[in-house]
């Protein structure tokens, strides 16, 4: 069953999601094809079609706490199969952006921290740097020894580079990050 707790500021969330994603939420007629094809729906409490319905009915910030928001693997099966051509994956991306902007609570695995760690290495070196990213992520989660048993084998096989990447056009990449940050500042 779908329950809506926070109808008052809910319209803001629907409008904000539509604005960010360019999707018209109201055209969804709940065929649930997105949920049927979603690879993580069997593991999450909320499903894509439910998120669509909740948005339509005026749900508010509590929707940003849905586990699907950060368990979605961005596989885009939902968008590819929607008979109404709704880009459901773009709706989830919009919810992520709102969750970050509105300071929603951290979820298992802390995907935003992982994304930040990844993008920080890109900003610094122009290309992603796994050891830098993994270290920053592990320090951030405080679980240093999680999933490290494969590390030696991967290093030995040369599947993880020891030194940071070189040769990337760092200047252009830094300019991009700077512009994006300024842009966000202007909007806020």
């Amino acid at each position, binding site marked *: 069953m779908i329950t809506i707790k926070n109808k008052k500021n809910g319209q803001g969330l629907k409008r904000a999601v539509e604005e*960010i994603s360019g999707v018209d939420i109201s055209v969804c007629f709940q065929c649930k094809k997105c949920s049927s094809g979603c*690879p*993580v729906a069997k*593991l999450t409490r909320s499903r894509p079609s439910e998120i669509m319905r909740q948005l339509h009915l005026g749900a508010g910030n509590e929707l940003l706490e849905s586990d699907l928001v950060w*368990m979605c*693997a*961005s*596989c*885009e*099966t939902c*968008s*590819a199969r929607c008979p109404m051509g709704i*880009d459901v*994956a773009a709706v989830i*991306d919009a919810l*992520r*952006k709102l969750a*970050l902007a509105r300071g929603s609570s951290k979820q*298992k*695995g*802390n*995907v935003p*921290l*992982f*994304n930040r760690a*990844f*993008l920080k290495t*890109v900003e610094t070196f*122009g*290309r*992603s740097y*796994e050891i830098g990213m*993994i270290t920053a*992520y592990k320090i951030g989660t405080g679980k240093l020894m*999680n*999933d490290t048993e*494969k590390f030696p*084998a*991967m290093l030995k*096989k*040369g*599947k*993880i*580079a020891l030194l940071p*990447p070189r*040769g*990337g*056009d*760092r200047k*252009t*990449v830094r*300019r*991009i*990050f700077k*512009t*994006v940050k300024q*842009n*966000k500042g202007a909007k806020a």
Partner: protein
Amino acid sequence: MRYAYYPGCSAESTARDMHQSTLAVAKALGIDLVEPKGWTCCGATAGHQTDRLLAVSLPAANLTKVQDMKLDMMVNCAACYNRMKVANHEIAAHPAVRQGVREALDRDYDGSVKVRHLLEVLLEDVGLPAITKAVKRPLNGLKVACYYGCLLVRPPKILKFDDPENPTSLDRLVTAMGGTSLEWPSKVECCGGGLSLPRTDVVVELTGSIIDMAASAGADCIAVSCPMCQVNLDLRQQDINKQTGKNYQIPIVYITQLLGLCLGIGSGDLGFDKLMVPASNVLEKVHERA
């Protein structure tokens, strides 16, 4: 045949084997690959989960470099391919996005650089007859489950790569190399992609069901063309076995590694030593001794 080859960040770490085998195969088939000088990260999943302008500008920085080379861009990593094509589409379709990118790059870009996946180059430019002719060591009926994952085929309206529900590009190549491509239901299922580190549990669950399907279909190996799929399926088999008590040992090979073997290139030059699940059954089948 000359292309600007964008290797992508994985080429320098987890997918060195993909990079190595791509270069070897290209050389053998007379495909001339030129790396754009100073290429940078496409932003990957972290980019588009974070900010739209970032997600479009990072690929655009590379597309403009290729524009100056007056060549088409060729990509092998499915994730980079996806981000490049989506960026092109967004820039061409939305003037506001193009304006944002202009500010970020200090240069205007119209989204017009043609982006090709290696599989498209092999199938459309080289062609299957030429590939069949170049095969020196056929796959001898090796049973291959071809796995496409997400980023090669979705979003279909923008990527226009093969059939999004039942693609056959890899299968056609495998058949041309003398292998048996298997019918199986997980071709375009998701492996969990970028969740490998933050949500290993989800990736183990998803890859577990894909490996299970390939095993049921009787696969000798799974052929991929995406570094994220390769790492997730290869690296996580140990975890799957630990959790389910099964003993899967299905090698996850890049299509370029298979093709390289068939073209007579030694397995050492194709990065076979870098696979976590050894592909000795594949090497035996083509009578190669590692």
